[in-house]
């Protein structure tokens, strides 16, 4: 690759950075996208035929990098919903360091027959009472009132992600409580 081409490309860096910053609103992500664009441009010098201006050609590459960056950040945001929730461990769930089960949740024997028993619903009631207030509130809005998550978030004034976390905690807590209060006893009792 020619040193001349390299310095021409380098000369466009400031422009490209402004362009990327405007789209990405994140200095690091913009810097990365521009860096990748310049590297891609250097690697494909032969792809530049001089028909368009160098700036237009580089901007074309940059647009692709920006789209990649946006996709990546939305993926990361989705993954962010899966941040470690230490409260789940506090409920007695045991995971290994790699996030896999240390103690595997057991099978429940014939859960449907529980639905025909009054005592089971008494246990469920106790379990619901034992939930932290806000968690219980979110869960009952969802499963008792049948509200959509959007409405629940609005009502509780939390983000959708936080809403899902509350509902997740509620379900995992109730799962644990029903196992301790009903299904576990049944298994041990035969």
């Amino acid at each position, binding site marked *: 690759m020619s040193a001349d081409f390299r310095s021409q490309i380098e000369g466009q860096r400031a422009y490209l950075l402004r362009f990327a910053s405007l789209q990405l609103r994140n200095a690091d992500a913009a810097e990365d996208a521009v860096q990748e664009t310049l590297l891609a441009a250097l690697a494909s010098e032969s792809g530049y035929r001089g028909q368009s201006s160098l700036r237009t050609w580089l901007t074309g590459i940059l647009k692709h990098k920006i789209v990649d960056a946006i996709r990546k950040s939305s*993926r990361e945001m*989705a993954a962010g919903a899966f941040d470690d929730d230490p409260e*789940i461990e506090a409920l007695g769930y045991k995971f290994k360091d790699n*996030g*896999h089960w240390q103690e595997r949740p057991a099978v*429940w024997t014939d859960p449907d027959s*529980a639905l025909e028993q009054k005592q089971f619903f008494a246990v469920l*009631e106790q379990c619901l009472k034992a939930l932290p207030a806000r968690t219980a509130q979110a869960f009952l809005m969802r499963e*008792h009132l049948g509200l959509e998550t959007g409405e629940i978030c609005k009502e509780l004034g939390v983000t959708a992600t936080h809403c*899902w976390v509350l509902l997740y905690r509620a379900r995992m807590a109730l799962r644990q409580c029903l196992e301790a209060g009903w299904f576990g006893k049944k298994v041990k009792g035969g």
Partner: protein
Amino acid sequence: MTVRSCKEVTQLVSQGLDRELAFGERAALLVHFAICQGCRNVNRQLSFLRRAMQGRSATEDETAR
């Protein structure tokens, strides 16, 4: 989205009860369930919990009548 662990799978299972999962998420769950009994159990049990809550409301209605 790549699901990396059982912990994440349980979160996704729960979210599946609250929002429509993306195709990739559903696929990731199925692949994971195929190899993980523990997560299969949790999946069944969280669905059961929903049925139990519906049963609870039905019982309440009967009592009210």
